[in-house]
């Protein structure tokens, strides 16, 4: 099939413009699809709400220690530990304590033992049992040890002043909200476009369009344009929600946020079109969608920082479009950096977006 040509003679009194009409039809179809509206707008808000509550900053979480019942000096140890403001103390049998430690209900088990033969005075001897791989275990061990040692007379040699930091900007929810914006832009861009395109192919609507003088690039561009309208609402809903409920502020300029979101949305619209360019069935496109998105769900630092992955794979992770989008969003929302600071990330996104749109246009299967 040859490429369709645009001849000036065919222009005539052409209104309304096909690109406008295609975009309009696309948006009308979207808002008349209640499920789609749910997944794009309600779902991310629910996700943010659930995660925000689960990881909310609690007032100085107390560590949990168990004291073994019936061990020597049990009453004395209990009294000392209960006086500590950092600890919640329970009294358990040896078996119960082992069980509680295993399931994470307590962070450390303290067992008093008889003073070793030959030791002097009233000094105790204790055994700490805890999971060294858990941060809470190590912290609880230190807190218990500190309380006991002090109560038994160890002097503090250092004057200490404490400053507690739990302000907006440093909490998990502050980290999470930009990630959710990024994830949402990826999801609605790829699933939204991918499904719509493949469905039109299955229903032979693409073939029907191909039988008209419609320019093929107009059809694909209309999907990109419809994403622009969608993205404004998507970003606003999640950012607005984070601000109202958790006080997550946008520290940078809203214009920069709009630009970063726009580039991100177009990037994933392009990728969505590329993934949907060939498959003939909804099942087929779903598999490809998952294959493409899964690495980004895992590695792109939406839920936790990607710095935790080995240094060797960092360049690959940074080359992913969602990583770039998340980094740029965090720079604007959390750090308040100017757009120029996110230039490399924008470049990475533009590469993916333009590249995949161009390839999609070539590979696109109309029937």
């Amino acid at each position, binding site marked *: 099939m*040859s490429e*369709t040509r645009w001849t000036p003679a065919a222009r005539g009194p052409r209104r309304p413009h096909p690109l406008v*009409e295609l975009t309009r039809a696309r948006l009308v179809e979207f808002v008349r699809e209640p499920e789609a509206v749910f997944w794009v707008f309600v779902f991310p808000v629910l996700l943010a709400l659930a995660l925000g509550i689960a990881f909310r900053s609690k007032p100085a979480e107390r560590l949990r220690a168990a004291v073994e019942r019936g061990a020597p000096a049990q009453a004395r140890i209990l009294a000392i530990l209960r006086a500590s403001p950092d600890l919640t103390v329970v009294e358990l049998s040896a078996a119960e304590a082992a069980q509680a430690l295993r399931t994470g209900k307590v962070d450390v088990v303290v067992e008093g033992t008889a003073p070793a033969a030959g030791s002097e005075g009233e000094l105790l001897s204790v055994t700490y049992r805890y999971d060294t791989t858990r941060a809470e275990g190590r912290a609880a061990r230190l807190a218990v040890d500190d309380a006991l040692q002090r109560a038994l007379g160890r002097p503090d040699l250092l004057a200490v002043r404490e400053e507690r930091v739990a302000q907006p900007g440093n909490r998990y929810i502050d980290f999470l909200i930009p990630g959710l914006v990024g994830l949402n832009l990826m999801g609605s861009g790829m699933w939204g476009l991918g499904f719509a395109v493949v469905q*039109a192919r299955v229903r032979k609507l693409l073939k*029907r369009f191909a039988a008209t003088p419609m320019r093929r690039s107009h059809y694909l561009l209309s999907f990109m344009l419809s994403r622009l309208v969608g993205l404004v609402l998507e970003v606003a809903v999640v950012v607005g929600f984070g601000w109202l409920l958790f006080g997550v502020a946008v520290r940078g300029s809203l214009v920069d946020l709009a630009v970063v979101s726009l580039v991100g949305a177009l990037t994933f619209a392009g990728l969505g079109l590329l993934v949907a360019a060939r498959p003939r069935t909804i099942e087929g496109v779903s598999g490809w969608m998952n294959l493409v998105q899964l690495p980004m769900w895992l590695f792109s630092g939406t839920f936790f920082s990607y710095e935790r992955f080995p240094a060797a794979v960092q360049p690959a992770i940074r080359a992913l479009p969602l990583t770039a989008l998340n980094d740029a969003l965090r720079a604007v929302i959390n750090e308040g950096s100017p757009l120029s600071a996110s230039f490399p990330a924008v470049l990475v996104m533009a590469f993916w977006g333009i590249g995949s749109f161009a390839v999609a246009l070539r590979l696109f299967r109309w029937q």
Partner: protein
Amino acid sequence: MTTETQRAFNAADRGEFDSMAVRCAGLVKRYEDVVAVAGIELAVRRGECFGLLGPNGAGKTTTVEILEGLTVPDDGLVEVLGWRWGTGRDHDLRERLGVQLQETQLAEKLTVGETLRLFASFFARPRPVDDVIGMVGLEDKRHARVGKLSGGQKQRLALACALVSDPELLFLDEPTTGLDPQARLNVWEVVEAFRGRGGTVLLTTHSMEEAARLCDRVAIMDHGTILAMNRPTVLVDSLGAEQIVEFELQGELDPLALTGLPGVSGVGGKGSSFRLSVCRIGEAMPALLSELERRGLTIESLTTHQATLEDVFVHLTGRALRDE
């Protein structure tokens, strides 16, 4: 492309050439191990309604989609409204065509008016949407969503989408398949009105009734080839029969015993099941009955009907069309 095809194509009289809306020659399309179209040659005159008639799998849809420029043939020449596909004028050519594909499902969430407005925007000089809605009689469904329409209304909307380009040539692929009689009639009236305005139609169907009613000429297709092509009445007349008599016997009979009967122009079938082409029913029936009585054979069942295109198809292929 064989040089023979090329020569046949080029040798065509230029005057006749210009009066043709569609011409193709030596058309071949293969899919993996199936030959869907095996060397088709046909010509559709301007202002004519031409029907491709045949069972499912005969290659009708593939042929039409090649003519519509949606499928590239493996071999052969195609000319539509004087232009060939793939010579840089595809866009302009599509402006002049109206296409209705088999089984296109339009977007369910859009209304009738929105759908037509979208299709109209693709064309440089579309018909006004209101006009087209009036042509297909969907005025009171203008604001109804496509998903809520009946099968017949959806089909009329598909026709409207094809007519919105104000086409010179209309391609209709199985326009009435699956519709009830009233809905079929509505579609036929729209097609007849289009022809009344001087439009050219190429349609496919496996309904003999539809072909006989709408088409000036039909091509009977089977297994990717054209078996016969002419006016429906000429094809029916070629059977040499006014009536078809079908009967079943208790017991068996040699077909040769029937060939000499007066008024019988053809004999089909064997054993106990037969099918006679009859040109003078008044002579043939008494002769048949007395012949059977003479041989002591009893009739199990007997039907007689006016010869139709269906009988032409059976005569050409030995198979019934609707059994496919």
